[in-house]
């Protein structure tokens, strides 16, 4: 079969919404794009445990502590599904960790911002998980089968997290003056980083076009960002809070919200490693990995001993 022919067939399958499965022949660039995207997503789940993990020991009630623990645990679970999905493309989990630790693989920049108050647990759930869901719901129909199936499970849990986050803020918004101020402050700090989560504008996003043709991606960054802003601009009214954008205004003609200029310089800087917590986050991951080496070695040594016993 000449290469022109099978690549056409591959595209035909995608056009007909037939899922690509691990054993199918696929263009190398398709495989690489997926490894990059899925591992980046997995790393984001694992690094994303850190800013929220920061508040588990200080959660203000036992119920909130339990909910937050369960949430961070869900994120670990998402990381697990995603690493497994990426492994079907021929890369090991250790190799992916190594790419994370050496800075070769990225994770979502949002997790390089610090969680300064309890209200940040609400803002992350509502805004960060909310933006993540916007990005992820279309991925439930993405062309690569294992990724799409992992995303179905993840999206169910994420939407639950978003409601929990909103509920934290709703409670604060009905509380004391200090709680209300804490709520507004968290929204002010997380708003712009959240809308940057959709990535650069379409004209500055080089991977979009090919990814759309392969149906790895189904909506552009700008489309998803607009959809998110429209949703949040309405929900913030329920909280009686505001979004920190003086240019945010409903545009009757476009039937969309207009919004102010995004500070892309900040975005590129955080991406390049200059965010407030880039160093701490990466350090925490590397430390966990290195401190855990003796545990993994021992587990391996023990299971090898048992294997030898059985064989003997």
């Amino acid at each position: 079969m000449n290469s022109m022919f099978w690549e056409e067939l591959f595209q035909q399958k995608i056009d007909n919404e037939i899922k690509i499965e691990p054993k199918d022949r696929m263009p190398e660039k398709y495989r690489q794009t997926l490894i990059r995207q899925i591992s980046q997503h997995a790393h984001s789940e694992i690094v994303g445990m850190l800013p929220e993990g920061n508040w588990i020991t200080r959660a203000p009630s036992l119920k909130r502590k339990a909910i937050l623990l369960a949430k961070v645990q869900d994120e670990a679970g998402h990381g697990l599904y995603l690493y497994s999905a990426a492994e079907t493309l021929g890369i090991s989990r250790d190799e992916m960790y190594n790419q994370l630790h050496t800075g070769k693989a990225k994770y979502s920049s949002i997790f390089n911002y610090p969680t300064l108050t309890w209200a940040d647990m609400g803002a992350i759930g509502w805004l960060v998980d909310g933006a993540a869901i916007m990005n992820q719901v279309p991925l439930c129909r993405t062309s690569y089968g294992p990724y799409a199936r992992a995303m179905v499970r993840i999206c169910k849990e994420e939407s639950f997290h978003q409601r929990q986050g909103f509920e934290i803020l709703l409670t604060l918004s009905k509380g004391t003056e200090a709680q209300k101020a804490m709520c507004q402050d968290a929204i002010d700090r997380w708003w712009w980083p959240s809308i940057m989560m959709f990535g650069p504008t379409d004209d500055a996003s080089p991977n979009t076009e090919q990814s759309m043709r392969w149906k790895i991606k189904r909506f552009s960054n700008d489309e998803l960002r607009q959809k998110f802003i429209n949703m949040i601009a309405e929900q913030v009214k329920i909280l009686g809070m505001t979004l920190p954008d003086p240019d945010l205004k409903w545009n009757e003609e476009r039937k969309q919200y207009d919004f102010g200029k995004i500070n892309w310089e900040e975005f590129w800087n955080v991406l390049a490693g200059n965010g407030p917590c880039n160093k701490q986050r990466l350090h925490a991951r590397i430390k966990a990995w290195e401190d855990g080496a003796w545990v993994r070695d021992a587990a391996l040594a023990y299971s090898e001993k048992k294997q030898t016993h059985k064989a003997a």
Partner: protein
Amino acid sequence: MKHLTDYILHLADNALIMGQRNAEWCGHGPILEQDIALTNISLDLIGQSRYLYQYAAELAGNNATEDSLAYLRTEREFKNCLLTEQPNGDWGQTILKQFLFSTYQLYLFEWLQQYQDERLKAIAAKALKEVTYHVRWSSEWVIRLGDGTEESKQRMLNAIDALWMYTGEMFIPSESEMALQIPLDRIYKQWDAKTKAVLNEATLLIPEKVFMQKGGKSGVHTEYLGYILTEMQYMQRTYPDSEW
């Protein structure tokens, strides 16, 4: 009634402080699957503490709630065993602490599920399912690490050295345990047999003639507890009378 309330608070404090310590690991574990497992145990323990505090709050009256009991008592009022408040140390120390504590909970709850107090009986029966898993998980890890590499064995020996002196207190009856006739002798025998069997399989030796520390049950703690409470209670102390 005071004895029952005190005893339930003791059980609740044990579970909460263990759960709080385990939660410190969340996101920092050596293997992703095990990070999830330990977080799960932490969640179970915090869940147990909530059932127990809710019951204690009803018995105590005075508008007490699960949160007022967990967040507004001082270090001299907490009744948890010293073992539970010890630092996590490395993964080996955390695992060993979990195993020693869960094994104690296992035999205690087995007994309590036949207890005369209906509510405590029900809480124990529910917790027993969780604790059975905690013992299985932690004992498997004790064996794996004890009988793994030279380094892991040495680390387990260090963990035994750090923790063993806090195990005796679990079986020294407090005033309320005496009043409620909790059979700690019998629970100790079961605990002793199980820990010996597991440590033996792990090729680890149980130290002999260790001088046992005590005091936690009567509110005389190690210095660690003050810091645990400072961190845990910070929000409730800073913003009193708020809904969260």
